[in-house]
């Protein structure tokens, strides 16, 4: 029988299960000993102690390099960033160091590190430097995997897979998703790099991930009432991109909409659109629609920040453009 958990609790459960299985799994991060900034490590210090759970201060690039060093010498560190935006401070350590050791070593080194971008996207009151969608920033760099789950079940299964992966994995957690409740069905890790067809449909393919997933669910329900049959794909991982699942879907629907919170320029949807346009344009009978964030800085305040990322209506309008 499956049980229900929030997204945040699913991450906590995955980390605890993997820490019980392998003593080399460590958790480091700002406030993790106090339960974590987003409530994903409650009780973890009590269970695993000060030899496994380490506090970090304000030195993101430094501690990301340190995590890389731990990973290359046999440990399996998980590091929590308080906000996804703070990864920008650590881009060199993640995408230029951790990501390259496998390649530069021949490959001799494993880099089994998980960089958790906690508190990503809008959903606070902070704006500007605490509310950005970081996913597309990571798309160009070889050597890392980028996981972006939407449901508690996928969060748990993909976190377990990320911890067991021998490559650096960036795991993106959205503020607006932490509280989502869902059934935990899988007990084993979920393969990184596999999208999921959430709903089968014949009229339009909608591809999304993370917070976009919930906007699409709402939109699809309304579109269904109007007789529009959407096929919904949750990417779950944006690097590597599961193009096979997308291609299979558009051969049926001939129409493609992508939905995400990243700024529209060079967003995740841009890469999907380019790959489809380059190789599969004959399957399409209309333009590719990208529903993405405005090309703007994120303003402060809950009310203001919702104005610059897509909502349910934007998804509905995007789908209707193709019909």
């Amino acid at each position: 029988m499956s049980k229900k958990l929030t997204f945040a609790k699913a991450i906590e459960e995955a980390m605890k299960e993997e820490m019980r299985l392998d003593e080399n799994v460590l958790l480091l991060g700002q406030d993790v000993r106090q339960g974590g900034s987003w409530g994903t490590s409650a009780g973890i210090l009590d269970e695993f102690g000060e030899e496994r759970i380490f506090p970090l201060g304000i030195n993101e690039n430094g501690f990301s390099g340190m995590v890389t060093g731990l990973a290359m010498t046999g440990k399996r560190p998980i590091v929590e960033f308080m906000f996804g935006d703070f990864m920008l401070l650590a881009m060199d350590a993640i995408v230029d160091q951790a990501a390259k050791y496998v390649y530069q070593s021949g490959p001799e080194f494993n880099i089994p590190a998980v960089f958790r971008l906690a508190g990503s996207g809008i959903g606070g009151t902070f704006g500007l430097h605490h509310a950005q969608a970081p996913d597309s920033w990571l798309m160009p760099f070889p050597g890392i995997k980028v996981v972006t789950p939407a449901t508690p079940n996928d969060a748990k299964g993909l976190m377990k897979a990320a911890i067991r992966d021998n490559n650096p994995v960036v795991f993106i957690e959205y503020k607006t998703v932490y509280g989502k409740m869902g059934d935990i069905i899988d007990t084993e890790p979920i393969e990184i790099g596999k999208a999921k067809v959430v709903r089968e449909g014949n009229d339009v393919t909608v591809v999304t991930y993370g917070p976009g997933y919930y906007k699409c669910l709402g939109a699809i329900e309304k579109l269904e009432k109007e007789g529009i049959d959407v096929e919904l794909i949750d990417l779950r991982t944006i690097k590597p991109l599961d193009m096979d699942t997308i291609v299979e879907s558009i051969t049926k629907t001939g129409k493609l909409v992508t939905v995400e919170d990243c700024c529209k320029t060079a967003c995740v949807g841009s890469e999907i659109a380019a790959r489809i346009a380059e190789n599969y344009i004959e399957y399409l009978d209309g333009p590719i629609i990208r529903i993405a964030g405005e090309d703007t800085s994120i303003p402060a305040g809950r009310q203001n920040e919702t104005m610059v990322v897509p909502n349910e209506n934007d998804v509905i309008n995007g789908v209707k453009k193709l019909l």
Partner: protein
Amino acid sequence: MDYPIKIVASTEKVNFNREEYGKSISSEKLLELYRNMVRTMEFDNTIEDLLLKGHDITQHNTRGQEATPIVATSFLTKDDYVMPYHRGWGWAIGKGMEPKRMLAELLNRTNGYNKGRAGAQLGDYELKVMGRPGIQAAHVPIAAGIGFTCKLNKESQVCLCMNGNGSSNAGNFYESLNLASTFKLPIVYIVENNLYEIFEPIEDTTPIKDIALRSVGAGMPGYIVDGNDTIMLHSVLKEAYDFARNGNGPILIESKTYRHKGHGNSDTLSYGGYRTKEEVDEWIKKDPILKLRNDLLILNVANEDELERITEDAKEEMREAAEFALSGDYPTKEQLITMNYVD
């Protein structure tokens, strides 16, 4: 302050009985240090020779700075780690890497340590030489993580982290020292201060003369030592490793030294350009290999003929290494675009 800077033996202030200490080091050890310094020098000469013959090879000449990395690595066991830096090759030769596979790597051939893809970023996981990043100072926090593993393993392992004075200006350097000192990690940080940051004199980039001062802000001991004096280096580093291995946390050693040659392939201004010829000539007189050679003769560790044979052997080894390296193939495109990930 918890740890005042300790000037053990600087170029300005010498309070050290070197002859007495020299006698306390075994003849075998002294000869091994000398041999590895000469091998490093001949390795660099071979790179220069290959460059002059038109081969595509990166040069970060060690000449003049051999003593520090060779002495520093001589204290490491097979379980200890080296996080290298970009000045020269003493750390690799000192830890036991094979010149032939290093040259092959530097010539980007598949018979190199890392299948020709790493070049100057070469490393050897088996020997625990961790392959530096090509970004200056990016390696310093990684060394903190390696030191963290050493501490968690509880087997008195240490990590040696090599640096230049230039990289000590980077935020990464301070972040690493801060982390290592906070977690009391067994790391010996060495900064070779060769007075230049590529073409720039240290006073143009750095507001202090002694990099060891940077240990104070990180709450760890800092030592200053004459980096061209093998015997003094041995004495200071012995103390440093004892400190780190015994659970006291990290330590920072500044080694005052000088590079005789230019920074890299394109540096044609190192003699009489951004440095005066007089300054370079003064430092050449303080050559660490010459100094150790004299010590070995004075201490009766070896005679002229024996020392000459070490040089001849090193030359022969490097000739064969170059032959091996040049016999290697370049990787195929297929090999170069795969293996960004491991299973």
